[in-house]
């Protein structure tokens, strides 16, 4: 068992999950409550990582983060090193790749909230912030926990994007899934098996949390 890779993976999943809660909640709120006619386009973009091969996402990320792109050059100017093949690059890739897994359960439970509760809260003098914490968050809690669990599990298990954007640098970008790939390449099947079992166990526990919270079948999209 490569503990360095294990802790790196946990760190990556934790950072990505925290970022996705922060940017996923407003995005999910917007998807759930917006009446913009082109909203479906935003929903489609958010869902893209589900269907795209990770290599496609990884390829474009590599281009976008590379030395020739404005983002890559700006990052280089600010931090002094490139974004590709670093832990930060990996975080950016993972955030995009896991975005639908955070946003969809949240949007689903937010859109199930009766709008009249928000009107009632406002008519009782509650500010938007108070309404958010007293009404929206408690009533979308199962969606939030589902989103957190799925994001964490999904980030732990990703492979394609990590390989494209991060490569295979021990302690920096070598996650458990890359580790398994290496072990198989080395014909070290028993080590690969141990690592794979750890991933299976973590995924199983997280999904059990999700399904215990959502008695009904968990659907990917809010309105199906």
């Amino acid at each position, binding site marked *: 068992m490569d503990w360095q890779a294990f802790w790196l993976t946990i760190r990556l999943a934790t950072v990505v999950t925290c970022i996705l809660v922060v940017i996923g909640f407003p995005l999910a709120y917007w998807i759930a409550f917006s009446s913009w006619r082109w909203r479906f386009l935003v929903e489609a973009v958010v869902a893209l990582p589900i269907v795209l091969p990770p290599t496609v996402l990884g390829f474009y990320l590599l281009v976008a983060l590379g030395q020739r792109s404005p983002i890559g050059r700006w990052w280089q100017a600010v931090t002094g090193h490139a974004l590709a093949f670093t832990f930060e690059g990996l975080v950016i890739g993972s955030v995009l790749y896991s975005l639908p897994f955070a946003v969809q359960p949240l949007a689903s439970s937010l859109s199930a909230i*009766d709008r*009249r*509760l928000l*009107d*009632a*809260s*406002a*008519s*009782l*003098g*509650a*500010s938007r912030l*108070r309404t958010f914490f*007293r*009404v929206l968050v*408690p*009533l979308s809690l199962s969606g939030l926990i589902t989103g957190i669990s799925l994001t964490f599990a999904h980030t732990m298990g990703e492979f394609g994007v990590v390989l494209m954007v991060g490569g295979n640098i021990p302690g920096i970008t070598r996650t458990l899934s890359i580790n398994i790939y290496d072990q198989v390449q080395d014909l070290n099947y028993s080590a690969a098996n141990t690592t794979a079992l750890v991933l299976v166990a973590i995924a199983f526990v997280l999904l059990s949390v999700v399904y215990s919270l959502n008695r009904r079948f968990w659907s990917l999209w809010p309105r199906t």
Partner: protein
Amino acid sequence: MTLLSNMSSTEQSAVGLDSLRVSVRKVLSTSFELAVDFAVSSGIHILFGPSGAGKTTLLDCIAGISTPNSGRVSVLGHVLFDSAARIAVPVTKRRIGYVFQDLALFPHFSVEANVAYGLGALSIAERNARVDRLLEAMGIATLRRRRPEELSGGERQRVALARALVIEPSMLLLDEPLAGLDLPVRMKIADDLRSWIRDTQIPVLYVTHSRDEVFMLGNSLLVLEQGRVIAQGTPHAVLSAPRSETVAQLAGFENILDAVVTSIHEERGTMTCRVRRVPERKMYQDAGWRGIDLETPLIRAAPGDKLRIGISAGDILLSTAAPVGLSARNVLAGRLTSLAQRDTTIVAVVDCGVEVAAHLTLSARDSLVLTPGSPVWVIVKTHSCHLFQSGN
């Protein structure tokens, strides 16, 4: 400071008749717009109208949940919205108690927490005191720890009322707050509500479809149709005086007959109206038409005037034998056309030249032994005939 505590009682009486002034236009779609202009005093005002008339939209505009395209809203002299002066007090600052049609109780809070929700700015001691007072007044003090899902319909409605009243609102908007409740429960809650409002002297807009509630609660009635206020006045004036047929149908008169005044009996306070035959109306197309005379209350009318007579199906008596010794002036012979059961009411349709619908209780049906085709007599008291202006 709250809006309400800024206003002394003298200020409230100074604004007198115009406790609530609303003059707004709100375009909802290309085919529907709300355009109302009215003023009401403190006390309960019934807002009456068919679904889709714009009642909820009007309440939302007053509450500040919807923004009118133009107009002005003021409560107790305070301007809440004025498009010309670019004033729009946000919904959170309006202090208007609003009981929504579906109540919108917070499902994750107890009764107590629901009621206390609007009191976030107060100290805990004061908040508890106010919540206790309201729970007591609404008769739900024993339910304080329960969640909304553990309450009956009537209890939920009481919680919603308590939640709206506890903030000491400057006015109340009640969107069918007692719909779906049994009459005794409704009357009990209406009593509690009425006594609360008598003490606070605030204006209340009360949406209902129920004629019982109109007479039980309202000292005034506004009829909304197609986004317009088509009638305003006391329930008795609006529903009894000659008015539009829409009002008659809203008021729950199942029988609306076209008639013409034939003679006036000034000394008896009545007049005789002959039910007219209107060719385009299917029910008058019967070739064997016989004219029917009805004695109705006297209104300002002259022989030859056309009007409509509204008779509530619940005000009609049926007899299987020709009645004698009755005070009722109108006895019409006819034949029973059909009997249908709606909930616990039997709807009997009798053909006595025109078709007349009468409501019977189940036991009345059983004791009368009615079968379609059998002869019956329809009995209508003079004062059960409500007169309305004819549309044509």
